[in-house]
């Protein structure tokens, strides 16, 4: 039967908890791109991201009976996903990821170069070269700053929800976001200043 309504996540969770596996399938369809995007940016390669994505939804399926419905499903699934990503990074020792460790302030200094590259008409269009540059620089961020930046500025999640997902205080989220933004802005400014023009 064709479904004509657009059920909320809460309704789908309720149905899934009652044994409706199709409802869980709809939740997967609704949230998989966000989780996959997060995994790609945190784990840096598609194969690991795909493994992690499966792990996240299998964990969510198994944990659904214990899901407390006062939280949003999206917050809950992001929380599972961020934990899964950080666990994998810890295991593989790709980064230093303690969310409580002091931050390095290396890039939080007065920018060396502030040429205004926002007026470059070509810069308004994402292309392969710029995409590669963005990926390289975001990958250079420490994982604890990268995850905050991805949630806030790539996925557009509020500071409060990001804090909830990561179990951090709001000032900690803001501090990490600020450092990540300055780092990435500085790197892009250097890219443009060095003549890395976007064709």
């Amino acid at each position, binding site marked *: 039967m064709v479904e004509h309504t657009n059920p909320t996540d809460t309704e789908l969770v309720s149905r899934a908890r009652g044994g409706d596996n199709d409802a*869980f399938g709809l939740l997967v*369809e609704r949230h998989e791109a966000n989780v996959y995007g997060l995994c790609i940016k945190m784990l840096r390669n598609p194969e690991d991201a795909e493994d992690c994505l*499966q792990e996240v939804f299998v964990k969510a399926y198994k944990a659904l009976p214990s899901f407390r419905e006062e939280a949003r499903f999206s917050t809950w699934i992001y929380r599972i996903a961020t934990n899964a990503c950080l666990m994998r990074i810890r295991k593989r020792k790709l980064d230093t990821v303690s969310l409580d460790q002091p931050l390095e302030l290396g890039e939080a200094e007065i920018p060396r170069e502030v040429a205004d590259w926002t007026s470059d008409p070509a*810069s308004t269009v994402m292309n392969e070269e710029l995409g590669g540059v963005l*990926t390289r620089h975001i990958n250079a961020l420490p994982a604890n700053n990268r995850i905050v930046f991805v949630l806030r500025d790539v996925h557009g999640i509020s500071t409060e929800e990001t804090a909830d997902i990561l179990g951090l205080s709001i000032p900690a989220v803001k501090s990490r976001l600020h450092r990540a933004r300055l780092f990435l802005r500085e790197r892009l400014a250097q890219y443009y200043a060095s003549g890395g023009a976007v064709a």
Partner: protein
Amino acid sequence: MHDHKECTECMQFLELLSDYHDGELDLALVTKFEVHMIDCERCQAVVKTLRQTIVYYGETRCKAVPQEVHSGIMNAIRACIDTKE
């Protein structure tokens, strides 16, 4: 143009840049910052390029997963269901 690296106001505003971008600064500080920027081309550029950096990264958000990736998830869940049953 004043020396951006030596200017304490530039230093102060760099620390507040994210809050300014997110509209979370007190009105008094916003006013002070914007008056400062009238004569500070470098701070103007930093604000604009920060904004553009965030726009660029926002455009990298994953919009959809490849079909085979979706199938992989559903197969993993089916295997989980089969085990339970």
